[in-house]
């Protein structure tokens, strides 16, 4: 197999990179080992959320340009502000072509509500989380109803409501909670413990019960302007179902992410994959890359579990295999390493420095800032210390940023993926 660009990792970064490459006519493959972290994400794209002192950042692009880029080591510094802007708009346009529109607050951050009822700054959200009517409605400081379907155990309205009431942004709201019945729930009596967000999303997709559900929502909301529902308003037909449900209830419908798997994230995953396939990209799922051969600073080929002794060749490679969760990085007793090529990693050698004393520490954990060391064009170093010219590292595998503390995971994944794609396109043309 001879590719122009072969990407290891089919998450948000790899897919953004791949879609850009195929849209410019390159032959591009993506190797993916299991579903990506999008299945566990909020489905909103964070660009930059918090100052070092935990204060909220309101204008992320401006903040990145003034304070992050000059710092030098952050992945954003390597991309540069123009590439970040371009990457983010390319990402939005890509999803829009698949019918999934993302909204932003005129270059400002907006807030989204987590499953625990905490409020987080973010940059791009789906229509059910942020749009102009939600923004206008919020200013009225009226009543909010947070509802769940009885029997769904991956969301707790009372918990979310209690946390929201503690938040100064919501101090003037009247927040109530309630439960509604889903007509098809009886079908699941045999195995109710497996009744997940996806089961309900599919029931919404079928459109059969929408008027009945809408009626129950209105009855349980006690005249509230907003209704917060766990995120499962359709998966394949989200835009249409959301519109119909809004019309039928006459309320502002707000989706709150549930415990994984996340429907909000899966909508993005679906849209990206179907765009990649439509443009002629080759998505190779369920395979694991075992290694490759680097000769004189050039990655010649890689081999995988399924392809056995067959070598996969490409002019350029991208390593977007994610962080620890996606096995892009692995931790052993006394070291952190990158398992595919054994690339040079920036990490503390003292295990005690890897993590913070408490799990939910505000400063987050140092291990999140570990990753593969690259030069300014995202090329890593092999075991001999030579730069690998045709390999680019993107997304969560990169070091020197903290996606949780800074609130910037999605933005880094997209902009570094896009940046690598631009470099690869340039390289293929010259």
């Amino acid at each position, binding site marked *: *197999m*001879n590719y122009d660009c072969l990407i290891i990792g089919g998450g948000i970064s790899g897919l953004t990179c791949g879609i850009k490459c195929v849209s410019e006519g390159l032959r591009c*493959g993506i190797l993916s*080992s*299991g*579903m*990506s*972290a999008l*299945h*566990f994400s909020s489905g909103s794209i964070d660009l930059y959320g918090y100052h070092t002192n935990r204060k909220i950042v309101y204008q992320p692009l401006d903040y990145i340009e003034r304070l992050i880029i000059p710092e030098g080591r952050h992945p954003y510094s390597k991309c540069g502000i123009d590439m970040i802007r371009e990457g983010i708009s390319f990402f939005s346009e890509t999803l829009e072509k698949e019918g999934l529109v993302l909204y932003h607050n005129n270059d400002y951050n907006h807030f989204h509500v987590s499953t625990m009822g905490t409020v987080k700054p973010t940059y791009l959200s789906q229509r059910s989380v942020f749009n102009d009517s939600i923004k206008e409605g919020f200013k009225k400081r009226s009543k909010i109803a947070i509802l769940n379907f009885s029997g769904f155990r991956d969301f707790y309205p009372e918990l979310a409501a209690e946390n929201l009431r503690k938040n100064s942004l919501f101090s003037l709201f009247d927040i109530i909670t309630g439960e509604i019945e889903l007509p098809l729930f009886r*079908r*699941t*009596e*045999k*195995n109710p*413990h*497996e009744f*997940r967000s*996806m089961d309900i999303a*599919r029931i919404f997709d079928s459109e059969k019960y929408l008027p009945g559900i809408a009626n129950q929502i209105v009855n349980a909301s006690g005249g509230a302007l907003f209704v917060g529902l766990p995120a499962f308003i359709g998966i394949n037909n989200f835009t249409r179902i959301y519109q119909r449900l809004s019309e039928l209830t006459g309320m502002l419908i707000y989706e709150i992410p549930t415990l*994984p*798997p996340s429907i909000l994230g*899966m909508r993005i995953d679906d849209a990206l994959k*179907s765009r990649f*396939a439509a443009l002629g990209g*080759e998505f*190779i*799922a*369920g*395979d*694991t890359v075992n290694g490759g051969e680097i000769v004189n600073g050039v990655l010649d080929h890689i081999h*995988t579990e*399924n*392809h*056995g*002794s*067959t070598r996969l060749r490409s002019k350029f490679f991208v390593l977007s295999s994610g962080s620890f*969760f*996606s*096995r892009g990085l692995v931790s052993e007793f006394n070291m952190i390493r990158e398992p595919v090529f054994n690339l040079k990693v920036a990490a503390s050698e003292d295990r005690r420095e890897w993590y913070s004393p408490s799990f939910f520490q505000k400063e987050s954990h140092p291990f999140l800032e570990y990753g593969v060391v690259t030069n300014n064009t995202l090329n890593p170093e092999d075991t001999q210390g030579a730069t690998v010219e045709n390999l680019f590292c993107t997304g969560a595998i990169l070091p020197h940023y903290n996606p949780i503390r800074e609130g910037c995971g999605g933005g880094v994944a997209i902009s570094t993926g896009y940046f690598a794609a631009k470099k690869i396109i340039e390289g293929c043309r010259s």
Partner: protein
Amino acid sequence: MINLENISFDHCIKCTVCTIYCPVARETHLFPGPKQSGPDTERLRIKDPYLVDDSLKYCSNCKRCEIACPSGVKIADLIQVAKFQHLKKKIRVRDFFMSRTDLVGRLATFMSFLTNFVINLLPVKFFMDVILKIPFGRSFPKYASGTFHGWAKKKMPDQSKFRTKAVYFHGCYVNYNNHQLGKDLVDVLNAMNIGVITENEKCCGVPLIANGYIDKAKKNAAHNIQALSRALGEEGTRIVSTSSSCSYALKYEYANLLELNNATIYDKVDYITKYLYSQFETGNIPPMKPVNLRAAYHSPCHLERMGGVIYTINVLKEIPGLDLVILHSECCGIAGTYGFKKEYYEISQSIGANLFRNIEKADVEVVITDCETCKMQIEMNTPYEVLHPVQVLARAIKNNTR
């Protein structure tokens, strides 16, 4: 003693992504999904078989859970092993005959005309539905007269003139039902200057595994490993198969499920399009003329699991005049003998419904797929003829010589 062969269930983080992508769990809540039937209950069954829940019989072994799993758990393997280790075998006449493809195939091809006639008689279908629990609505593949193996032994054009050779594992479907696919393969490989060797093979074992006849499956597998290793002979010779599930079994299930040593053949077995593509890459592309065909391509689950779909697509792309629509990858529902059983028939049909709709929407003349049972399912549920990629290639080659 606790068997520690497959402890990949320990890597499960309970994210439920597998269940989301399980076609069976999507259609019926009788199946709690791969997470629960696989890693969740494995840790219980491993201690006490009393804790086995018979809902795991609903798993069709499509293996889409393993493709989806972010943590590398061999979910479908866990379920298959649990099935045949713990589930009480209801010795049904149906399951016995359905899994004995060689026995039934030999009998049926002996008087194929009669078989094909009788099997479609209404009273017979009614009898099969009520007594044997083979669904009335199910259509059956036609049986050929004689076997492909017999043809290869007596009537196959002389292969000794070719220096490069490939061992062809034709599988039961080519042997008893579709000789033409086998003959097309011989034409295609010969046009590429490659000779074909056939061996005295037995059923690969997939239907035996699915129906819980593990000892018989092991016997067949051991026979095949030996026969194929013997046939390999010269360095560089490969074993090719035109069935995606046969090649998956030879390569993976012999070792993972049947616990046999298949090292002599493991790295030599290719599903046919991978072999063809590697030949194409070296410049060995047969001369072809346009086929002028608009076709939809459906990728079978087991080929997806093997990572073989890209090879098929890239081989098809080499065929001139083939206007290809690549369908969204999803299970057709038949899963081997699963869709031939009354208790799973409705589930099987509803799994495939969306695929059938997408095929109708694609506005094509034929459908192309790599798997024989996918072909049966699609031909039964859509008005289209289903071809194997090798048959389309053979057509393009014949057009050239015409």
